[in-house]
């Protein structure tokens, strides 16, 4: 059996009396899409921050490619190969679309303390940025100002920036949100192929996409993982039915 | 150094501290409630001092002068809030800095226009002039002691206002959540004007009280403003308690540093260079204090955010 690329062990996080993350353990295996679902307020956002490094856990460990990264912040985790996309688009809005992916390429390349050569004439970085845009279908928008993109296009740009990082693991927070039916279908096809490049921990509300894509699904309720399994196992799981549909319907 | 001198200096430091508090309290309230950095707060201090000096000149009454200082500063505060400041709440800090810097230029030159470049004098009222004998045989100017008392009284009043009154509840609610208090039907722009005018009145009062010990002149508010910023950085932005603790710390450090450091340096340096090095270091002492606090608590002693 291969080792997991991402392994969370007994993560906890409380805000005062509220337990936002309650003893969460899960793994992400090479080549898989592991979906994380749960009702609103289940603690998905908190967990993502704990994985990405923006929020320190009260206890538990995060291992990344066999290395304990619990004590590290956002930047070293990104450098270690974690490619994150945000639920609410987090882009450099004054920049062009291409500049955003070039920024990603620059982050991957390092060597940021260079002060003289125009970065947008750096073939290597620009090619990498363009390649990422092409993969998500934003080539035509490359010269557009990011603030002028539609909501759905920004979601795609988020994914494109993550691609330029050539991460070992993708951590995607609701990439389908606001895409519309055809857009989300297209992205579903894209993510399906992407898992070969690197596994994806996918937080998503679009259940069609989740059931179509996920090798495994974990259900988070009140900060706890109440079930982990394949799509069919999750659909049949009584505790999941109860959490989502309420006790009456489950009965 | 004699004990008497030391106690005297501690009292001077306290007096300086409570005056700083009057400035810092307004600044920190305005920042906490409206999210605004107001460089022109020092101008309101100046307005208070000039109003007091002018009224004292006409009427000879110190009490009327104080009333005039409060009224003039509050009016000036309300006026600039209505005309300029309220357009800045949604702007970034850079715009706030620049617009309030512009207000300083206008206030300072406008005052120079009205009153000329020569300093005015505001006399300590006769009843409070002269020294008083403190327990232990210390002679201390009565007026300064009164300032300490007034400052502490106002501080208590501000704490009471924030903690116990309706407007205080609104202020605290406004700090926590603007939309919420608007949803509760509170007229938020009126609340903002009131908070701003209140802060302005406190600054004007400080200007008038200090104006009687120092000269009343254009630009007098700026050094105090910057010290008030240091106070806020030390105490934590938005915290009245922090403003009080910070003010006293800064007041004491500044006063005692100037007295204690030169002789301290004298213990291991030549007397002549000890005086210059000591006074140079003393002039930086409050900033060193600020750096020290920052290193350990980047958001100030009582800063939550």
């Amino acid at each position, binding site marked *: 059996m291969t080792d997991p690329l991402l392994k969370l062990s007994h993560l906890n996080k409380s805000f005062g009396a509220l337990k936002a993350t309650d003893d969460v353990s899960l793994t992400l295996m090479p080549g898989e899409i592991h979906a994380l679902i749960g009702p609103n307020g289940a603690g998905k956002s908190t967990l993502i921050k704990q994985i990405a490094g923006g929020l320190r856990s009260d206890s538990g460990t995060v291992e990344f490619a066999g290395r304990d990264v619990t004590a590290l912040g956002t930047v070293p985790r990104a450098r270690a190969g974690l490619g994150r996309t945000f639920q609410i688009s987090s882009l450099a809005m004054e920049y062009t679309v291409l500049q955003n992916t070039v920024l990603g390429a620059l982050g991957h390349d390092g060597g940021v303390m260079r*002060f003289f*050569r125009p970065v947008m004439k750096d073939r290597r970085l620009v090619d990498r940025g363009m390649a990422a845009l092409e993969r998500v279908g934003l080539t035509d928008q490359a010269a557009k100002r990011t603030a002028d993109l539609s909501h759905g296009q920004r979601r795609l740009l988020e994914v494109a920036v993550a691609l330029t990082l050539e991460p070992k693991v993708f951590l995607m927070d609701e990439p389908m949100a606001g895409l519309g039916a055809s857009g989300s279908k297209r992205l579903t096809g894209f993510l399906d192929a992407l898992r070969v490049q690197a596994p994806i921990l996918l937080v998503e509300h679009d259940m069609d996409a989740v059931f179509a894509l996920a090798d495994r699904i974990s259900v988070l309720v009140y900060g706890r993982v109440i079930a982990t399994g394949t799509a069919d196992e999750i659909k049949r799981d009584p505790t999941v039915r109860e959490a989502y549909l309420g006790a009456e319907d489950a009965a | 150094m004699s004990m008497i001198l030391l106690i005297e200096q501690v009292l001077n430091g306290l007096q300086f501290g409570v005056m700083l508090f009057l400035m810092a309290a307004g600044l920190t309230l305005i920042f906490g409630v409206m999210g605004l950095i107001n460089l022109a707060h020092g101008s309101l201090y100046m307005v208070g001092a000039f109003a007091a000096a002018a009224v004292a000149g006409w009427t000879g009454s110190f009490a009327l002068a104080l009333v005039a200082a409060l009224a003039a500063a509050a009016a000036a505060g309300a006026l600039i809030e209505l005309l300029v400041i309220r357009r800045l709440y949604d702007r970034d800090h*850079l715009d706030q800095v620049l617009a309030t810097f512009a207000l300083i230029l206008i206030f300072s030159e406008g005052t120079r226009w009205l009153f000329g470049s020569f300093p005015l004098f505001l006399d300590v009222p006769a009843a409070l002039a002269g020294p008083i004998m403190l327990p232990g045989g210390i002679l201390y100017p009565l007026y300064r002691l009164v300032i300490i008392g007034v400052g502490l009284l106002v501080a208590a009043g501000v704490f009471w206002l924030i903690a116990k009154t309706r407007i205080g509840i609104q202020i605290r609610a406004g700090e926590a959540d603007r939309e919420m208090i608007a949803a509760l039907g509170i007229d938020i722009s009126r609340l903002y004007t009131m908070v701003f005018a209140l802060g302005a009145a406190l600054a004007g009062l400080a200007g008038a009280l200090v104006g009687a010990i120092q000269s009343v002149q254009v630009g007098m508010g700026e050094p105090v403003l910057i010290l008030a910023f240091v106070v806020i950085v030390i105490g934590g932005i938005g915290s009245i308690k922090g403003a009080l603790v910070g003010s006293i710390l800064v007041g004491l450090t500044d006063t005692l540093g100037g007295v204690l450091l030169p002789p301290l340096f004298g213990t291991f340096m030549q007397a002549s260079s000890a005086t210059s090095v000591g006074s140079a270091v003393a002039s930086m002492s409050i900033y060193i204090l600020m750096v020290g606090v920052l290193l350990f608590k980047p958001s100030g002693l009582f800063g939550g955010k």
Partner: protein
Amino acid sequence: MTRETLLNIVLFAILPATALVAFALDEPFIITLATKAAILALAGVGLNIALGLGGLVSLGHAAFFGLGGYAMGILASHAQSYTPLMETPFLIEGTKSMLVIWGVAIVTSALAALAIGALSLRTTGVYFIMITLAFGQMLYYFAISWPAYGGEDGLSIYVRNEFPGLNTLDPIQFFAIAFGILAIVLFGAGRLAKARFGLALSAARQNAERVETVGLTPFRLRLVAFVISGAVTGLAGALFADLNRFVSPTMFSWHTSGEIMVFVILGGVGRLFGPVAGAALYILLEHTLGGLSEFWHVYLGLLLLLVVLFARGGLIGTIAGREVAHD
């Protein structure tokens, strides 16, 4: 060619054109004004690297301007009195060489910016503004209370410092030096803005979280920007002191910080030529309004207020329109 490029060329040409016309008409005072504008623009270009590109609202750049000024004042005063700066542990003598003075000014202000930046950049927003202001003020009071170099009265230097091959006391030649430096620094700042560093720094201003997520540290980017910014402003301070042949604690005062910021804003924040436009406009106002009324700061204040409230792009923004993202 975009409207802004055209405007930049005009702005770039204004100062030397003014100086040359004044030279032809034998109006040395006008040349000196153009020189002053060039030097203040240089200070603004320095601040603009931190403020425009990095979004760092520093209200303490007078610290670097003053350090540059005192680097000149201290070195030149020792040279004019033939006393060494320091004898133990090794001998340091004063100098009248501009090149050496500039080097010292740049290094001193860069080191100060490193220290001040390392402390201030731990904070953001209003704290950053207040702390940079406080550090500037700290040096101001230090300069006042340190008696060795004139204290409150400042230091006069009787003869302008030397530059190889030029007569620096001739106004047009000194203008050439100041403008030459401005041109070089503008070129460098323009390249920096478009280079890898500029892309990342400006991204950190727009969205720090994004920059972290691609594996870059905003703090490091900002600190380096602050150091470069301080060094340029320090160099401007040394030139300013040489222009006046005088340094005083006023160079450290927070009004100086505010004025440097005003140059940047009047011209247009984040625009390469913004400080040039702003400084030229400032000098122009000072000498037209200043001639009309001794209280011209009231008008300056009103103008600044109007620009902040209603014309946020400054002079260049108003004329050239919204900035187009460069590619």
